[in-house]
């Protein structure tokens, strides 16, 4: 592997690490930021996601080979890891490390964009149901019940049947539109509680319309749980994308995604375990990292867990009464009242 690529690898990793450090520095003064970085899994998960993302962005610089070129179909099939091929080659003689990097682009992009679709739709539906209540709420929530009770893999299989090979945009929207049900329930519950708070009445008394009340007053006060769910949904949709690609209805080869890399390599698991292990571990680590970040965000944004009791649980609270009270409400955007 040329030295330039190694340098690029280190550079990209350093950028990711630097990003985490900057965020850490910036949020140190805020109790929420401290709670997040005090949570070791969240710290490491965030680090992993940051480095993975910067490697994915820098894939053309870092990857030593093209992800789709078959280097030597006779001589380089299923070669074990070596200095020239860090993670070996697959059965078509493609470089697994390069495919892993390009696959990260696809998998992370699908994960992030599907998550956005799911969160936007889930928030819109949940906020409508929670704010309007009554018949609107009942209809929307029964629809959500149906959505939660039908395994989404079947819906996506039907959807995939509409195309010979599903385009990436359809995959993203399809995954997003089948992943918002849980979010909408959560947002509805938050909106139901926030809408009864005094300042919402005050906003209505000022003459604010329903859209303004929801967008300006209710949702920002429900942002914590929504952000936490976003992290968890990201992990879930990446897993779903991998599963679909593994089944052959997700991302179309030769474009690499971590799921279809496993699908390609699964028949040669004995001969070339590295070509299955690399994408498999990548999926496992990134999904775990999303869950860890979600946990950390919950600790940071949920006042019920980030107060003194949570610090006691972590063994950091002291009985030092002279310690200054935190100047902000412990919740960041939410607060006790």
């Amino acid at each position, binding site marked *: 592997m040329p030295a330039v690529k190694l340098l690029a690898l280190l550079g990209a990793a350093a950028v990711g690490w630097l990003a985490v450090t900057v965020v850490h520095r910036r949020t140190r003064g805020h109790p929420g930021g401290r709670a997040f970085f005090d949570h070791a899994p969240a710290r490491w998960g965030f680090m992993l996601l940051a480095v993975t993302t910067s490697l994915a962005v820098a894939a053309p610089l870092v990857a030593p080979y093209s992800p789709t070129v078959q280097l030597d179909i006779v001589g380089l099939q299923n070669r074990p890891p070596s200095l020239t091929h860090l993670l070996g080659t697959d059965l078509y003689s493609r470089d697994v490390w390069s495919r892993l990097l390009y696959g990260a682009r696809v998998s992370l992009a699908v994960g992030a964009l599907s998550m956005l679709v799911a969160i936007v739709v889930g928030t819109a539906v949940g906020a409508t149901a929670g704010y309007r209540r009554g018949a609107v709420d009942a209809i929307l929530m029964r629809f959500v019940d149906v959505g939660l009770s039908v395994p989404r893999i079947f819906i996506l299989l039907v959807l995939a049947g509409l195309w010979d090979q599903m385009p990436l945009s359809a995959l993203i929207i399809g995954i997003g539109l089948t992943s918002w049900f849980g979010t909408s329930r959560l947002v509805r519950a938050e909106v139901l509680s926030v809408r009864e708070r*005094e300042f919402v009445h005050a906003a209505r008394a*000022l003459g*604010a319309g329903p859209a*303004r009340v929801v967008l300006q007053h209710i949702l920002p006060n429900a942002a914590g749980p929504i952000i936490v769910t976003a992290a968890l949904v990201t992990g879930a949709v990446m897993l779903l994308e991998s599963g679909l690609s593994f089944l052959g209805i997700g991302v179309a080869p030769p474009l690499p995604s971590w799921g279809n890399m496993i699908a390609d390599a699964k028949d040669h698991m004995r001969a070339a375990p590295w070509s299955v292990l690399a994408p498999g571990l990548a999926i496992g680590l990134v999904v775990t990292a999303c869950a860890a970040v979600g946990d950390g965000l919950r600790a940071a944004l949920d006042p019920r867990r980030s107060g003194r009791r949570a610090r006691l649980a972590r063994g950091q609270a002291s009985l030092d009464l002279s310690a200054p009270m935190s100047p902000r409400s412990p919740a960041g*955007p939410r*607060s006790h009242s």
Partner: protein
Amino acid sequence: MTEPLLRVRDLRTYFVSARGPGTARAVDGVSFDLFGGETLGIVGESGCGKSVMSQSILRLVPEPPGHILPGSLVEYAGRNLLTLAPRELRAIRGNRIAMVFQEPLTSLNPVLTVGDQIAESAIVHQRLARPAARARAIEMLQLVGIPDAAARVDQYPHELSGGMRQRVMIAMALVCHPQVLIADEPTTALDVTIQAQILELLDRLQGELAMAVLLITHDLGIVAGQADRVIVMYAGQVVESAATPALFAHPGHPYTAGLLASVPRLDRPRTRLEAIPGQVPAATAWPAGCRFHPRCPYAWDRCRTAEPPLLEVRPGHAARCWLVEEPARREAPPRAAPR
């Protein structure tokens, strides 16, 4: 007499619950007029319906479970606010009729700066652009006497003291120079010195902006100092209405007399404070006849069976009590209320 600014007639707001004790008649036939520039005090114990009444005027009662009965009328500028389309009603809320809420701690949005919240009604009603609205917010903060307004405008509610927050609430309500200000217990959550400042502020602004103020409170001291006229509410009804001096000098209703007797006074010889026995009955089951009779020291048979209308004591002074028709009974030594 001049035309009233706000005319409320037979306002009834009921809360219906499918389970539980049934319909709560929280506001049950309230009528009054509010004239331009005056301060009308609304007094009564907790649970007598004064807050629900004030929220009903702008239709802010959550529906369901609450609903305002069809026969009710809240007339402003020739239109019934209770039947107005939501969009037209929103054009009045915060613009022509504004409200100051009881709890300055919970009535401000914790995630928005106070400037954003004051600017909001200017943006909603006057379609001001953000920079102009911000300038307006600073101006309003100065008007309500907050020092260093240019810096305060970017602070969050939790960075302000209780008195400051109530000033911010008042600033929010006054941005559009409303004709009517409904102040629902504006000083209850504040300590006495701050209370005095806020009342003084309301008084000054009322003069500057020529507003009518509907001052809802349970504190007779505030009413005595601020209000031109007073309405006493009990059990969802108006039981007495009079000009402030007349009410304090000659309370026509035993409930009003009881309220007055239960206030400690520094300018009278020390006597034992009277308390009105019992408490406001549940809104789901108002007593038959006069709603106050179970607690009334004068109550006789007529009170238990027939509900008195508002009877005129003298012009401009009315009380919902049969004693107005049978003043002789007032001389009879009051016995302790049965209970």
